[in-house]
């Protein structure tokens, strides 16, 4: 026993000594260019802007391509980019964009209205990636080139959120892409690991699954925000959190994402490292199957919502999170704090349970979460304790992501409780409200199979109203009604964090970007 204690003391001492190993400060150089190394866990299987997006893909797309407009800052604002200005008709059906005249693709070709038209048509025709955002409202023949630098979109019906999706529709060089077309694939095969953009960076090296290196475009048409701007960025795939942390400490990586809350706290205390910490737009909620017993019973759902210990969520993230005050994330336009929003109140929980079909409890519920996601498992453990006080049992079921999505796709198989993180793609309230519409049934965030004809009608109406003054009250009503139906346990918004060397400057946070995504354009290196 004494021997065992000695060994464990020794191991602890060695680990502690290793943990305080001094960080080394260095960034990569290529000639006189300062190259930042971003150690991320997620690969970039394709960079075709019409085919796919997630945080790592979009980080690279945003660096290589430009769109008509761009999301910047916190709260996110849509600012002119390839379009210097735009206007919409009073009914939000016709949108006209006027392009800047100095934008150039990396080949030197000018970025014209025809290139914009071709890019939008390509995305609609391939019907993948971001196509879903506009395909219900925008048809190919409704995109008109008015002159070389003016383009007009006429939607099939008024659609106010249109502009909020345009930042994710990147413009490609048709001349360049079509020379690489194979069997009428609109350049899909080639654009998987090549680019045809006008963005601030171009590809230097693309070693699939290993690293992706981009270099700054000298004379980028938009200019650079700082004279110390980075000369390039290497996105290095580092799949293990401990290795990411070690790379940051040793100076082999300048930015890391995706560490655990404890790891972030630890690296934040190290000299030479900073940890930006901002409230994000990713909500954590526990979806309750509203179409199948027992959670079909609204009183049981409310009992669950009042039984849950919300403060425990914040503790799991070491305080780096904020609780939801509405079904909509805080950064969503039109977000309101719903009066009397759910917080732990065991008396009310028991009151609602008494009104339900299960007044004595005595039933077992299933809590499905993503296998290996420690935070979700901890939330399940908290819930076991909470529900025991109501006489309810909880079974924790870890599933791989594909299996979980498959279970959540049908009413009959969707579990009573499913832990889900959701990031809306835009700041427009429609992007969140539509998750509660019937058309979202079967998607992972629609696994509650929420049904309320009144709410659906409001959602459909709100997206077609042009004036914000008229839309805002509709969304306020939608938030209140969804909350009242308790289709999920509305949890929290975890903060977005990155570990960075302190010489990395210019980082601009915008909550509309996905979890690990960073806008690489404004980054600079202050060190010599």
């Amino acid at each position, binding site marked *: 026993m004494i021997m065992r204690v000695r060994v464990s003391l020794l191991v602890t001492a060695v680990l502690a000594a290793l943990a305080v190993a001094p960080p080394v400060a260095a960034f990569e150089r290529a000639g006189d260019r300062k190259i930042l190394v971003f150690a991320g866990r997620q690969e970039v*299987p394709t960079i075709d802007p019409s085919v796919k997006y997630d945080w790592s893909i979009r980080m690279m797309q945003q660096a290589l391509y430009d769109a008509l407009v761009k999301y910047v800052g916190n709260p996110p604002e849509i600012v002119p980019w390839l379009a210097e200005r735009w206007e919409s008709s009073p009914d939000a059906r016709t949108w006209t964009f006027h392009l800047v005249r100095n934008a150039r693709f990396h080949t030197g070709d000018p970025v014209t209205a025809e290139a914009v038209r071709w890019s939008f048509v390509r995305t609609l025709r391939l*019907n993948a990636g971001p196509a879903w955002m506009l395909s219900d409202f925008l048809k190919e023949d409704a995109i008109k080139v008015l002159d070389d630098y003016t383009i007009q979109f006429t939607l099939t019906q008024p659609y106010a959120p249109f502009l909020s999706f345009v930042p994710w529709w990147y413009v490609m060089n048709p001349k360049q892409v079509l020379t690489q077309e194979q069997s009428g694939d609109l350049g899909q095969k080639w654009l998987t690991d090549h680019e045809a953009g006008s963005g601030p960076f171009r590809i230097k090296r693309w070693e699939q699954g*290993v690293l992706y290196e981009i270099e700054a475009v000298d004379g980028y048409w938009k200019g650079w925000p700082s004279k110390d701007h980075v000369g390039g960025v290497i996105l290095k795939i580092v799949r293990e959190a401990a290795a990411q942390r070690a790379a940051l400490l040793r100076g082999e990586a300048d930015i890391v994402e995706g560490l655990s809350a404890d790891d972030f706290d630890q690296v934040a205390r190290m000299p030479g490292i900073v940890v930006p910490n901002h409230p994000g737009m990713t909500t954590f909620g526990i979806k309750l199957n509203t179409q199948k017993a027992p959670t079909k019973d609204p009183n049981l759902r409310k009992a669950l919502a009042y039984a849950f210990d919300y403060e425990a969520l914040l503790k799991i993230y070491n305080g780096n999170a904020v609780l939801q005050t509405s079904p909509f994330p805080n950064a969503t336009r039109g977000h309101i704090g719903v009066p009397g929003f759910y917080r732990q109140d065991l008396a009310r929980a028991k009151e609602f349970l008494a009104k339900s079909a299960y007044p004595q409890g005595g039933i077992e519920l299933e809590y499905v979460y993503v296998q290996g996601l420690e935070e979700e498992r901890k939330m399940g453990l908290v819930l076991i304790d909470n529900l025991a006080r109501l006489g309810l049992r909880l079974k924790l079921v870890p599933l791989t*992501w*594909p299996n979980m999505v498959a279970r959540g796709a049908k009413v009959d198989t969707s579990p009573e409780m499913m832990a889900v993180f959701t990031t809306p793609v835009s700041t427009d309230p429609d992007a969140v409200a539509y998750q509660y519409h019937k058309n979202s049934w079967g998607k992972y965030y629609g696994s509650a199979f929420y049904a309320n004809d009144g709410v659906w009608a409001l959602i459909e109406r709100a997206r077609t109203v042009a004036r914000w003054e008229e839309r805002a009250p509709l969304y306020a009503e939608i938030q209140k009604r969804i909350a009242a139906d308790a289709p999920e346990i509305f949890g929290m918004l975890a903060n977005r964090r990155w570990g960075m060397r302190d010489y990395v400057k210019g980082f601009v946070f915008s909550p509309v970007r996905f979890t690990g995504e960073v806008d690489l354009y404004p980054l600079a290196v202050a060190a010599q």
Partner: protein
Amino acid sequence: MLFGLLCLTFAISHIVPGDPARLAAGPDANETMVRTLRTKYGLDQPLPVQFGRYLRGVLSGDLGESLRSHHAVLDDLVRYFPNTFELVTLSLGLAVLLGIPLGMLSAVRKDTWVDHLARVVAVSGVALPAFWLGLMLQLLIALHLGVLPLGGRLPLTAAPPAPVTHLLFVDALLRGEWGTFVTALRHALLPVVTLCFPALASIMRVNRAEMIETLTQDYIQSARAQGFSGFRIVTRYALRNAMIPTLTMIGLRYGWMLGGTVLVETVFDWPGIGLYAVNAAVSSDFQPIMGVTLLIGLNFMLANLLVDLAYGWLDPRIRRPGPR
């Protein structure tokens, strides 16, 4: 055998829950987009039709396309497999080089401190999880002492040699890039040691046990009586016989290691086939899963064939035809 493997992998991949088209289309994709993808990849066809088409593809050298990345699976295998092959070959080579002499020494010096030490190494090799050992080596040697790199195959800004065989070490030598060869060797050292340790332990244990048994045989006593030196008896007469079970173990290990490197690859960012397979599995991406299984199965068979051939070389009785 390969056909059986294909049937089994295809069946398992297709009966597990999960809609690969929906996963590949993305979380926000609408039904039309999912349907488009399903049709494009033939996932709307009955399973026998899908299997028939896959078999035809395999026979013509087309292993299909990844739903996740849209890359040809064959291209991906050519990209990732050589890395795993080099890692496993170096690790096993090192394990053989160390494991056999250690096994011999341990058997000859049975129940002495040498034997005890070797057995500690053997038990540790089997007991220590590879990822833990890898992380500890990383922390100690790369992070704390800073003498070896943390991971990867080359420094971030170093360009690999132009591919000839896609084997980095071989290509560096063929291109005469000695600096790249040495740098790659430094990057390989920690993952090779990590992966080598459990193999070394198994080889050593088997070799030790066989050697102990062989050294008690009559013909060894007879050789001793005839005055042969101890070194000659051990290396020339005992080892040769003890090597047959050891060789079986090496063959099995090689096949197993080619498909079981994922943890080491994860810790050291080694761009190998294990990680590729795991990423495909968690996305229900069938074609890469089947491609990897086929390749590993093929390697397993090749490794066993080589072992069978080596039996004949070690023991002439095996290669002689038996009485009719």
